């Protein structure tokens, strides 16, 4: 899309949420959802690069078959902390707490979230949890794996599990409060005329995400509490020597941690829906199906947890049921993919950077989703359990899907957030580098896993034939690292040197584009009234024929 070059002059004097107040306290004590979104953006970026650093060390260790870079214990801590940081301190808050926080009130025409002070509290909880996690990592870390299975975590590990558990427990409440705020805001704060079927699908996706955050997170919170109590007081609830049941832990843990995957991917789907509609200049195909498929994913997501436990000793009958239900998740996911594709069909497609990320999402999510079906099948699941096949599968969903959507959304809304345009050429290059780097990193892992390389091994010298694929993967991870650094550099650059952004650089539909860039503190100068359907791109692009006066021939 050609960027409009004419910029109205009066914007340079205008008061926005960014220049209304200055000083550290105007940020640390703000209740403005847009400023809190930026606080979150800075914090999760910090944790993203910590988690990424651990990932690079893991990949470097696996460059050679021998365990020569780090020791076995260190390696255990590396993959544990990589997982804990990335899951609980980056992926879970990523889109909801940044883009969601910024956009949910704007998209529904509200001045703020329903509970602005609780919103700020949620950021502080995140920071407290994050600080405890940082302290834990700097004073030894944890080696249980991010899944902290009992009885290893409760009875045997001599690393700081309790401290990490407290960190995750606190961060969990931050996630609950964000979800609570979204649900209430979406129910109660919509602008006049903005009915449920006129809501952007980004909002539907965040609504479904919030339901999972609300109903899932408390369960993992109480699970952490029980494991910590078990570890400190030796209660016996999860200890088989005392009559307890370790499988109960796995049930409780995955009851949250499987739906947690949908906390990560659903907001990304919402972002991609917005981008695809805008850059193919069409109303999204099958609006209601896409909306309800988000809810369906949230509901089904709660019914499939035991597919993580097929080899853990659950009964064959329950394994069959969970296998069947896991296949069922493919239905709403496929509905989304097919509807996106149908939206693209005969659209006037523009290849701007956000759209490149959306295309990347489509491909990678499809691969991740289809390999998910392999894992739902009992036989194949037993074959590839705890191999790199699983690692590759969930990285295709959580990195290929969730992070691609996150980056696409950051590019799409960056002009609105910062009021500046990012350099389009660099952005397209970065999207390409991320896509290539990602596939180079993780596709070989599918093959490795299928050949039998187990996950969480730091030494594979008994199987040197795995090295070629591991070298490819490590090479890819460095490319991917460059791809992730680039946007951070040019986003920061654009804040100072970027061209001022027009209010609606993409000529996009949606309320957030009908106010200034960057928006004023209360988002809209007048309370908006919605009289149009979502994604009315045909109307936006229609030539102004109604103005013509009919002439008699």
């Amino acid at each position: 899309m050609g960027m409009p070059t004419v910029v109205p002059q009066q914007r340079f004097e205008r008061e926005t949420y960014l220049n209304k107040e200055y000083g550290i306290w105007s940020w640390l004590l703000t209740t403005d959802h847009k400023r809190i979104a930026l606080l979150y953006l800075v914090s999760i970026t910090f944790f993203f690069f910590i988690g990424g650093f651990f990932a690079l060390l893991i990949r470097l260790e696996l460059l050679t078959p021998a365990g020569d870079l780090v020791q076995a214990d260190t390696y255990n801590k590396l993959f544990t902390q990589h997982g804990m940081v990335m899951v609980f301190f980056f992926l879970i808050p990523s889109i909801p707490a940044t883009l969601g926080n910024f956009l949910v009130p704007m998209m529904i025409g509200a001045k703020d979230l329903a509970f602005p002070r609780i919103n700020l509290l949620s950021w502080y909880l995140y920071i407290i949890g994050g600080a405890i996690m940082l302290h834990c990592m700097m004073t030894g870390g944890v080696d249980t794996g991010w899944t902290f299975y009992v009885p290893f975590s409760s009875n045997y590990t001599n690393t700081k599990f309790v401290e990490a558990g407290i960190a995750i427990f606190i961060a969990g409440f931050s996630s609950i409060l964000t979800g609570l705020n979204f649900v209430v805001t979406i129910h109660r704060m919509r602008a006049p005329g903005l009915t449920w079927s006129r809501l952007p699908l980004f909002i539907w996706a965040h609504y479904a995400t919030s339901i999972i955050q609300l109903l899932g997170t408390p369960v993992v919170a109480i699970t952490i509490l029980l494991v910590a109590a078990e570890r400190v007081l030796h209660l016996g609830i999860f200890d088989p020597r005392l009559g307890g049941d370790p499988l109960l832990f796995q049930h409780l843990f995955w009851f949250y941690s499987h739906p947690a995957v949908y906390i990560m991917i659903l907001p990304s789907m919402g972002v991609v829906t917005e981008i695809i509609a805008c850059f193919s200049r069409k109303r999204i195909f099958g609006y209601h199906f896409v909306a309800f498929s988000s809810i369906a994913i949230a509901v089904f997501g709660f019914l499939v947890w035991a597919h993580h436990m097929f080899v853990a000793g659950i009964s064959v009958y329950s394994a069959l049921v969970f296998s069947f239900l896991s296949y069922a998740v493919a239905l709403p996911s496929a509905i989304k993919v097919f509807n996106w594709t149908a939206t693209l069909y005969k659209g006037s497609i523009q290849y701007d950077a956000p759209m490149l990320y959306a295309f990347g999402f489509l491909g990678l999510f499809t691969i991740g989703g289809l390999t998910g079906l392999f894992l739902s099948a009992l036989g194949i699941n037993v074959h590839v359990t705890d191999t790199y096949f699983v690692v590759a599968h969930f990285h295709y969903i959580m990195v290929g899907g969730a992070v691609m959507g996150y980056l696409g959304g950051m590019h799409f809304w960056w002009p609105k957030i910062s009021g500046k345009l990012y350099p389009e050429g660099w952005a397209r290059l970065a999207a390409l580098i991320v896509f290539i780097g990602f596939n180079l990193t993780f596709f070989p892992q599918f093959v490795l896993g299928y050949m039998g390389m187990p996950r969480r091994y730091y030494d594979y010298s008994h199987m040197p034939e795995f090295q070629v694929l591991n070298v490819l993967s490590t090479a890819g991870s460095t490319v991917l690292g460059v791809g992730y650094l680039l946007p951070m550099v040019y986003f920061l650059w654009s804040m100072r040197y970027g061209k001022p952004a027009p209010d609606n650089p993409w000529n996009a539909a949606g309320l957030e584009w009908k106010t200034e860039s960057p928006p004023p503190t209360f988002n809209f100068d007048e309370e908006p009234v919605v009289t149009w359907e979502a994604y009315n791109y045909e109307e936006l692009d229609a030539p102004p024929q109604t103005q013509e006066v009919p002439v008699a021939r």
Partner: protein
Amino acid sequence: MPDSTVIGLQHEEEQHPELLHHFVDAEQQRNAASLGMWVFLATEIMFFGGMFCAYLVYRHWYFADFGAASKSIDATLGATNTAVLICSSLTVVVAVWAAQTSRKTLLVVMLVLTMLFGLTFLGIKGKEYKDKFDEHHVPGASFSFNNVPVPGHPGEFANPRHAQIFFSLYFMMTGVHALHMIIGLGIFAWLLHAAWKDRFTPEYHTPVEIGGLYWHFVDIIWIYLFPLLYLIDRH
């Protein structure tokens, strides 16, 4: 907005000191706060749900041992506490009504009574915990539950390890519940302060309402804990 009467109405409502800037009117604010509390209580159900789930699994596995262990808790104290909490729910309801109808004295008295009931509950709970401590029924190194007969099975004794799981769940569940009571007391202390300062009016009494909702929820959790922990083997 061209309609001047609408602007006038909105302007009038914005005069209310308790209306926060980002709400259109007081009704929206009230609805949001109330829905927020209901949603929060849904998360609380899931939070307790994890422990109820663990309880059900082990009750099913160690049926008789749980019966024996349950019998060692003082059901009279438990029943007294149940009565205390039900009374406190009544005082909460009266407090909400008093706030709605601007009866300040009644509101203050009811809030104080509720807190007194809450403290009574915690006191009795503390007595129970002390008894368990004296009897060595607290899970851990000094736990002992030897030679306790299984009800209805003469000559059989409860497995101490399985009984320890019962007591673990007993302390976790009642402990988390008691923590919620303490938080509730904090909320009610704040409500009392605000009521004393005349903040609540028939137009604005949402905090009393949603604080009351929270209190009722904590009571209801107890209504489920009481039979599961105290009554499973009383005949």
